[in-house]
Each structure stands twice: as structure tokens, then as C-alpha cells.
């Protein structure tokens, strides 16, 4: 069966809508009803899932020459001068492959959340919005005992998840960078909201801000890159940018720092990815983001947000390699390869020393994303995409599995009532394989996939392809670094499995842990199927024995996204043996070292430098956060605004007043008032006083005076005028 092209196009437009409608409905109307909210939420996830499956499995995977004729559709959106900026949807082979895993993981996570947030349990005794549920006391068969209580903000959780899913779908189906960025940022917001979901915990609210701000550093660079690209090409639509002509122009235009325009743009966009995918040096937010509820961690780390970062680089791959001639990496590619490889190893070393079950996975995520980034840096397009997808499956599985473990442990904690026991600390666990068999087996599959357990797991095939690519193209440094990282990965994964599931319970709480409900275990089982089987679609053709049994469908399909289909790396025994050795060696070593560890003090890898993540948080705090505070509060506000500018303004007041009073005191009062005003009066008064003596009132004297005056004037006239 295959659907029609028109239908596929319409469906693509519709895929992102159900989750956002669910968000709106839950926020506006059904906030009070837990049942309605999760029904709407999960229902929306199912609708999007069905839509995605129709578009991918029943159209994209079957149609011929899909790479040349992808699903495309666009509308006018922004008027820009005489032209319009158009937005639309695009599903090409890469998009289809990504949409496939995204819709599955999102659906699984929605389903899992129902159980994880304790749907159907009674409301807690002292629970309140903003804090994790603390358990409810119920009476059964005459005696009281404590059971998990339902999350107080249950509906809100599904609303946020819906918005998050919307963001991811928008990102995947976008045909242009701008709407892709819209989805990207919506996810950023949701991760902020979800990490800070239990906002009553100070650690959660700080982690939320940290996550948002750290990724935003990347985002502003990315926005700059988008603006640059848009300015240089006049379009942001992928298929218009990735024409040979445009790429050639970009690759031959020099920009700043000795890079070409394409290189600089790709670098700016890549910085966005560094933030989003938590690559060194912007990796610090991701471990803290574990403050969120576990489905969130899975959502953020595996299925959506961090994958989005890598997806963006894969999308922009033609741009990244526009000025790549095949001989020697360009500046941008070297930077990408370096950051990826460095992060892969660096994060793996930290993961070795972490005790929190989720934090180990967080660092392993950073490390695996580094893998993909490194692969892209050396030009291994298909391998990166392949690892992105397999990783999404098994990492979602691991996160959900760890959530299940924590949930089981919380059960134990409620049972004993000892709230000092951290249900996330692996040293409090042990022996859980008997208590939680489904979780154990699925976690084991996920862990082996992550370690790259040979042949059967998906992780092996994707990782092997990256190593083969690095080796095949002679990028020795990358090859060695990634191999070392792979060894560490296998080691800490086995450490985690050993500490959590194997051996005997180390605490009472672990003894009373319980398997989780079906809503949580079903996603685990489904994802573990993919964690194994998805690897089979990408087995290299020339692989001994297995090669050619199934065609290398993935390479063929995704490769056609690009104008020139990249060659699969040639088969060589060295990378294959390397990956066998590191995977099996790491796993074996991990088991050997940790099978007898009884408590933290027995663990010789608790190195302060590693435990404290190389002191990056402290260093950033000292180098950036504190100075920023100082700059804002002291320099800008206190010195500049309040001191300098307002100081100058405040000079005007007194100065004007001073000039005014000076004029009054030294001119108006003495000169105008005293001298001219009062002075003329005084003079007149004085004369009057003197002259009043002649005013006798006697007429004859007046006449006499008149006569004398007459004579005097007469005489004077006579002498001066007539004579």
C-alpha cells in the first residue's frame, strides 16, 4: 500500500498540529481533569505518529527517486520589500528518516509519562504544585502503608510535552532555516519549562535558567548565521541554498577570519548546535538538566532537542562542505571535527566517575553527540545520520529505563520511609535484575547498543561506520580519539549495569524495589526492538559474511538527500577489529572492576577532578557569570546609569539653580532692585525731603520765587542766547 503524493504533502503540514492543539486544549480547558489531559496528549502523539508513519513508511520509503522529488510545499509568510519570504514543509530522505524515529520516540515517551507521573495513584498527603510527589498514605487490610502519589501538575506536564513535540515536528518538517529555528527555540522554551517543572526545587529552577541561557548563547550565533546566510543568498529555503550555483558563490566569497562565507556561516550555525547538543564548551547545562522528570530527560536528550542540534548540522552539511575539495579539511570542518572528537572523549571521562544513574547517561549523551559531530566534521554524512537515529532509539530506551529504575527505587524508599536514600544513586542499588526483570533486560539491550556490542546491536553498526569512515579517510587523530571514547563508553556502561542490576541489593530500598506498570515497560520493550533491529538497515555491503544479506538500505536512502550520493567507506579490518576490541574490552573491564564493589569507598575512580566535571561549572561561574553580574549591577547600573549619566543630569538641576540664584543674588537684587528700583525712589525721596522746605503754602513767596526765576532765566537767556 502506498499513499498518494498529494495526501503525503497535506499530511506533512498536519503532522506538527495535533501536539500543539493538545497543548492549547489542556492549558485552556482540561487543566483540571487528569484523564482528559493525558488522553488528549497521548491521542495527539498517536495522531502525529500515524501521520508520520503514513508519510514515511507508506510514502517516502517506497517512492522511487525520492531524493530528487521530495515532499515539498510552501506558502507566503513574510513580505520583505518587493518579495515574499516563503515557509513550507519539506520531507526528503533525511527528513523522512528523522521523522520516523522522532515520531516513534515521542509516542513512546508520551505513553511512558502516564505511568511515570503515577496516573491512577491517590493524591499525595503533602504534595503541592512545583515539587515532586512525596507519596500518599493509604489504609489497606487494616494497616497503613505509603504508596506513590500522582504528580500534582499532571495535566501541565502533558501540555508541555505537547508543545515540545510540536517544536520537534516543526523542526523536522521545515523546508527552511527560519521555521526550523522556530521549532528549535520552542523546544528551548519547553526544555526550560520542563527542566524547571518542579520549580519549587531551587536546583531545578537554577538548572532551567542555566539550560536556557547556555543554549541561547549558541542560538544567538545561530541567528546571526541565519541572518548572514539570508543576507548573502536572499533565501533560507534549504533546497534553494543547496543548489550548486549558490553554494559555489558562497564558497568562493571571502568573509572574515580567513574563512569563506560558507565556512563562516556554517561555523555560526554550528555554534548553535554546540549549545543545543551540549558540546564542549557549552556542555554544562545538560547534566544539570537532569533535574527534570525522567521522561523529560529522555525527550530532551535522546529524541528531540539534542538530536535537533546534530540534525541541524546534518541539514547544513552541503553548506559545511561547500568549500571542501576532498583534500584536507577546511577550517570550519576541522573545528567541527575537533569539538566533536574532543567532546566525545572528554564527556566519557566524566561519565566514568558519576554516581547518579541519570547523570551517567547525560554525559554519555554528550559523548555520543560528539561522535556524530566528529563524523560530520570529517565529512561522514550518512554515518552521522545513522548514528543519530540509532542513538536516539537506544538512548531514549536507556533514559526511560533509568526512569523506571528510579521509579522502582522510589517505591522502595516509600516502603522503608527513609527519605535520606537517594533513589538515583547507583551505589544504593544493586541486584535489581530480579526485582525489575523487564527493565533489566531492556536496559541491558540499550546499554549494549550504546557500548557497540558487536553484530546484534544497532549501536555497533552505526559506531563502526563512523570509525571506518575516519579510518578510511585517514583522519587518524579523530579515529584514535573516538576509539578511546568508545572504550570508555563500554566501560562506564558496564559499570552502570553492574552497579544497578547485578550483584546483591546494597540497601533495604533496593530490596523493596518494584517493577513498574505496563505504561512504562511497553515503551521499553518497543524501543529495545529498535535498539537492535534498526542497525540491520545499515550493514555495510562488504562486511564479512553478513554484508549483502540485507542491502545497505540506509546509506542508499539517506545518501540521496545530497546532490552527489557519498560513497560508503571501503571495508577494512582495522576499524572493525578496533571497535570489537574496545566494545568487548570495555564491557569486560567494567564488569570485572565493579562486580565486587560494595560501596562508594571501594570505587577507585572517584577522582575529584572527574567527579567535579573538570571544574567547568566553577570556572564558568568565575569567568563569565560573576563578571556578568558585576558588569550589569555595578558597572552598567550603578556606575554608568546611576553614577555617570544620572550624575550628569543631576548636575543640571543644581547648576540651573545656582545660575538662577546667582542672577538673583548678584544682579536682580542688588542691581535691578536696589540700584535702579529702590535707588531711583530713594533719590527722589531725598530730593523731595530737601525741597519740601520751599513749599511753604504762602502764595506770595511762590510768586516771589517765580519772579526771581523769571529774572534769572531772562538774564541767562539774554547773555547766552541774545548776546
Amino acid at each position: 500500500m502506498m499513499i498518494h503524493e498529494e495526501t503525503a504533502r497535506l499530511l506533512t503540514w498536519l503532522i506538527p498540529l495535533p501536539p500543539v492543539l493538545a497543548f492549547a486544549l489542556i492549558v485552556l480547558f482540561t487543566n483540571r481533569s487528569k484523564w482528559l489531559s493525558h488522553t488528549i496528549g497521548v491521542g495527539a502523539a498517536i495522531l502525529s505518529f500515524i501521520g508520520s508513519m503514513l508519510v514515511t513508511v507508506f510514502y517516502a520509503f517506497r517512492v522511487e527517486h525520492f531524493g530528487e522529488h521530495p515532499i515539498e510545499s510552501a506558502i507566503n509568510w513574510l513580505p520583505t520589500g518587493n518579495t515574499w519570504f516563503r515557509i513550507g514543509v519539506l520531507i526528503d530522505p533525511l527528513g523522512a528518516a528523522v521523522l520516523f524515529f522522532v515520531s516513534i520516540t515521542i509516542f513512546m515517551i508520551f505513553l511512558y509519562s502516564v505511568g511515570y507521573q503515577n496516573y491512577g495513584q491517590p493524591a499525595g498527603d503533602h504534595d503541592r504544585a512545583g515539587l515532586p510527589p512525596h507519596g500518599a498514605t493509604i489504609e489497606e487490610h487494616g494497616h497503613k502503608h505509603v504508596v506513590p502519589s500522582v504528580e500534582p501538575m499532571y495535566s501541565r506536564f502533558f501540555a508541555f510535552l505537547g508543545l515540545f513535540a510540536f517544536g520537534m515536528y516543526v523542526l523536522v518538517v521545515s523546508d527552511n532555516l527560519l521555521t526550523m529555528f522556530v521549532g528549535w527555540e520552542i523546544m528551548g522554551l519547553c526544555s526550560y519549562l520542563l527542566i524547571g517543572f518542579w520549580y519549587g526545587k531551587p536546583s531545578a529552577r537554577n538548572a532551567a535558567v542555566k539550560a536556557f541561557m547556555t543554549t541561547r548563547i549558541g542560538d544567538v550565533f545561530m541567528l546571526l548565521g541565519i541572518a548572514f546566510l539570508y543576507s548573502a543568498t536572499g533565501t533560507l529555503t534549504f533546497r534553494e541554498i543547496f543548489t550548486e550555483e549558490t553554494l559555489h558563490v558562497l564558497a568562493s566569497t571571502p568573509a572574515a577570519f580567513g574563512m569563506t562565507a560558507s565556512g563562516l556561516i556554517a561555523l555560526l550555525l554550528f555554534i548553535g548546535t554546540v549549545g543545543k547538543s551540549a558540546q564542549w564548551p557549552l556542555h554544562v547545562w545538560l547534566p544539570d538538566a537532569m533535574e527534570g522528570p525522567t521522561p523529560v530527560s529522555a525527550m530532551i536528550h535522546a529524541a528531540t532537542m539534542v538530536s535537533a542540534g546534530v540534525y541541524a548540522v546534518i541539514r547544513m552539511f552541503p553548506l559545511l562542505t561547500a568549500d571542501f575539495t576532498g583534500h584536507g579539511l577546511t577550517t570550519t570542518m576541522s573545528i567541527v571535527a575537533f569539538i566533536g572528537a574532543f567532546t566525545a572523549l572528554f564527556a566519557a571521562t566524566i561519565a566514568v566517575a558519576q554516581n547518579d544513574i541519570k547523570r551517567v547517561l547525560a554525559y554519555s549523551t554528550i559523548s555520543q553527540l560528539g561522535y556524530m559531530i566528529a563524523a560530520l566534521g570529517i565529512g561522514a554524512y550518512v554515518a552521522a545520520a545513522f548514528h543519530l537515529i540509532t542513538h536516539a532509539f537506544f538512548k531514549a530506551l536507556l533514559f526511560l529505563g533509568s526512569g523506571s529504575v528510579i521509579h522502582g527505587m522510589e517505591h522502595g524508599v516509600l516502603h522503608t520511609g527513609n527519605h535520606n536514600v537517594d533513589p538515583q544513586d547507583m551505589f544504593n542499588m544493586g541486584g535489581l535484575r530480579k526485582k525489575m526483570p523487564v527493565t533489566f533486560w531492556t536496559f541491558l539491550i540499550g546499554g549494549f547498543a550504546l557500548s557497540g556490542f558487536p553484530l546484534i546491536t544497532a549501536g555497533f553498526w552505526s559506531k563502526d561506520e563512523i570509525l571506518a569512515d575516519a579510518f578510511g579517510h585517514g583522519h587518524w587523530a579523530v579515529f584514535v580519539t573516538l576509539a578511546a571514547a568508545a572504550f570508555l563508553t563500554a566501560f562506564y556502561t558496564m559499570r552502570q549495569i553492574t552497579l544497578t542490576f547485578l550483584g546483591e541489593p546494597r540497601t533495604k530500598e533496593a530490596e523493596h524495589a518494584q517493577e513498574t506498570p505496563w505504561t512504562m515497560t511497553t515503551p521499553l520493550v518497543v524501543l529495545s526492538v529498535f535498539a537492535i533491529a534498526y542497525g540491520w538497515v545499515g550493514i555495510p555491503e562488504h562486511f564479512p559474511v553478513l554484508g549483502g544479506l540485507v542491502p545497505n538500505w540506509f546509506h542508499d536512502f539517506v545518501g540521496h538527500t545530497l546532490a552527489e550520493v557519498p560513497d560508503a567507506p571501503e571495508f577494512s579490518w582495522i576499524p572493525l577489529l578496533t571497535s570489537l576490541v574496545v566494545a568487548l574490552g570495555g564491557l569486560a573491564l567494567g564488569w570485572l572492576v565493579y562486580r565486587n564493589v560494595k560501596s562508594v569507598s571501594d570505587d577507585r575512580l572517584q577522582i575529584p577532578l572527574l567527579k567535579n566535571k573538570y571544574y567547568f561549572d566553577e570556572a564558568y561561574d568565575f569567568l563569565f557569570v560573576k563578571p556578568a553580574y558585576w558588569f550589569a549591577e555595578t558597572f552598567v547600573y550603578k556606575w554608568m546609569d546611576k553614577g555617570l549619566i544620572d550624575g550628569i543630569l543631576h548636575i543640571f538641576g543644581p547648576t540651573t539653580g545656582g545660575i538662577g540664584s546667582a542672577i538673583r543674588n548678584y544682579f536682580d537684587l542688588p542691581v535691578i532692585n536696589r540700584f535702579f528700583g529702590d535707588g531711583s525712589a530713594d533719590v527722589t525721596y531725598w530730593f523731595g525731603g530737601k525741597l519740601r522746605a520751599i513749599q511753604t503754602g504762602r502764595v506770595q513767596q511762590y510768586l516771589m520765587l517765580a519772579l526771581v526765576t523769571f529774572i534769572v532765566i531772562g538774564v541767562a537767556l539774554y547773555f547766552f542766547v541774545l548776546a
Partner: protein
Amino acid sequence: MVPLSWYLIFAAALFSIGLFGVLSRRNAIAILLGVELMLNSVNINLAAFWRYGNVMDMTGQVFAIIVFAVAAAEVAVGLALVISVYRRRNTVVADEIDMMKW
């Protein structure tokens, strides 16, 4: 014929006598009489100038008659004032009527 200067000298003498009377007499009525003398000396001048000037021109005579009328009016008002002052202050001595000083 008597020369003009004689008339003028006469008129001047008469004016001076009147002026002296106005300035030196204490009685208000006598002052008024002095004023009459001065006015009449003016009339003499007017008549004399008319006679020695253009006889056909009537201006001098007309003026003299106006002066008569003015003098009569003046005396009437002046005497009325004197009587009024006398009734209130019981005196006609000019020096004592000094309400208008300062």
C-alpha cells in the same frame, strides 16, 4: 505826538507797582488790587501798540477788552474766595492762609 516809549515806560512802572503790591501786601484784597494794576498795565501796552501799529487792525483793542472781561471775572472769583476763607478762618492775611504747604 508822544513817542511810544513813554507809554511803555508808564505801563512798566504801573506793572512794577502792581507787582510790588502783590508781593508785599499782607491783605489778600490788596493783593487782588495789585493784580488789577498789573492787568491794566498790560492793557495800556496793548492800546499803545495798537495805536502805533496798523490802526486798521483791531486785534489790540479786542485783546484789551478780553482782558477787561477776564480781570472782572478774576476779581469776582478772587473776592469770593477771600470771603469764603475769611468766613472759615476769620482772616484775610495771606501768610496765614498756608493750608497748601507740603
